[in-house]
């Protein structure tokens, strides 16, 4: 998963460190790394708050897997801590889905279902391809398969549990639905990079993957006696979303908390 020679592009904006990977791969690594970093952080917020002790352990396992992935991916781009702690909100490239607040357990599970299904499909494809992220994906795909299974198991139990859990799970699936379309936009979707063909550094048939995702999620929701949400899958803001550095309001507060200590001691080592 080290540097591969690909055509240079305008690179990743606001990346403070010298990229260790070519700019195109760096953009992909940054986007996927930010996804993992941000979701890991959100899952970490559950510590001490989970509905049952067994689930404390399960959520922490997932958070740790994601943090491990984030560290590998960000290290392809630059210094992991500089990237995590010293970028401004607008420089983060994660999809908006992963930054959504935990909400109740149903919201967390819906977020996990949507994202881990996506991540599993994507890493399967990357692991099977011959590219700079193949090695990373081959390892991560096993972790992510487990995350997906965990989310599916809980979606079914909450959807097909009690009337209350059914309502909560349906509300959660509906609420997060509008953040799911963004995941299938080609990753280098910024105005300054998408003009160059193949610069994402990965070769993924996004529409095909989206179809797989929809089929899989639909099947799980069916088993869970839940309705597939009907609303739009992307926001109406033509400026874009997370992959373009446009985030939702709660994300700024999340970063403020995450970065404050590191930023309070410039240059310190920990």
């Amino acid at each position, binding site marked *: 998963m080290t540097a591969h020679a690909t055509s240079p592009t305008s690179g990743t904006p606001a990346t403070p460190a010298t990229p260790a990977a070519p700019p195109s791969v760096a953009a992909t690594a940054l986007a996927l790394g930010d996804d993992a970093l941000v979701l890991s952080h959100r899952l970490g917020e559950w510590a001490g708050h989970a509905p*049952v002790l*067994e689930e404390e*352990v*399960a959520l922490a396992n997932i958070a740790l897997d994601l943090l491990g992935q984030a560290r590998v991916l960000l290290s392809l781009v630059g210094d992991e801590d500089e990237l995590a702690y010293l970028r401004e909100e607008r420089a983060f490239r994660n999809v908006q889905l992963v930054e959504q607040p935990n909400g109740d357990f149903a919201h967390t599970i819906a977020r996990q279902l949507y994202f881990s299904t996506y991540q599993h499909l994507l890493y399967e494809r990357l692991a099977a391809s011959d590219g700079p992220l193949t090695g990373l994906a081959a390892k991560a795909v096993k972790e992510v398969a487990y995350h997906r*299974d*965990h989310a599916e*198991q809980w979606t079914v*139990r909450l959807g097909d549990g009690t009337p209350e859990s059914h309502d909560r799970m349906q509300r959660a699936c509906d609420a997060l639905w509008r953040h799911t379309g963004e995941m299938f936009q080609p990753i280098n979707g910024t105005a300054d990079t998408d003009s160059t063909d193949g610069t994402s550094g990965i070769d993924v048939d996004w529409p095909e993957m989206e179809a797989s995702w929809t089929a899989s999620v639909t099947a799980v929701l069916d088993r869970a006696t839940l309705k597939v949400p009907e609303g739009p899958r992307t926001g109406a803001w033509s400026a874009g979303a997370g992959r373009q550095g446009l985030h939702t309001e709660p994300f700024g507060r999340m970063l403020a908390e995450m970065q404050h200590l590191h930023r309070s001691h410039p240059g310190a080592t920990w």
Partner: protein
Amino acid sequence: MSDTKDWPLWEVFVRSRRGLSHTHAGSLHAPDAELALRNARDLYTRRGEGVSIWVVPSTSITASSPDEKDPFFEPSADKPYRHPTFYEIPEGVKHL
């Protein structure tokens, strides 16, 4: 409200590596077998302790009682002829 009252107790058996038997690792609560297996994976193999897991509802295990210890286990203590060391073999005889 009930907590784990409706989440039965499961006993967890882990095979630490191929070639070894599953051994009892501990117990946990889970609503059903699938989640019991997953909870066991998360709880008892966080540090790579296992390659295979069994979960069994605790209520499905029938155990011998300590009260029956003597009738159960003592009779086997006086049959030394079941052990190879019981037999005397002349020096120098090999592969026995």
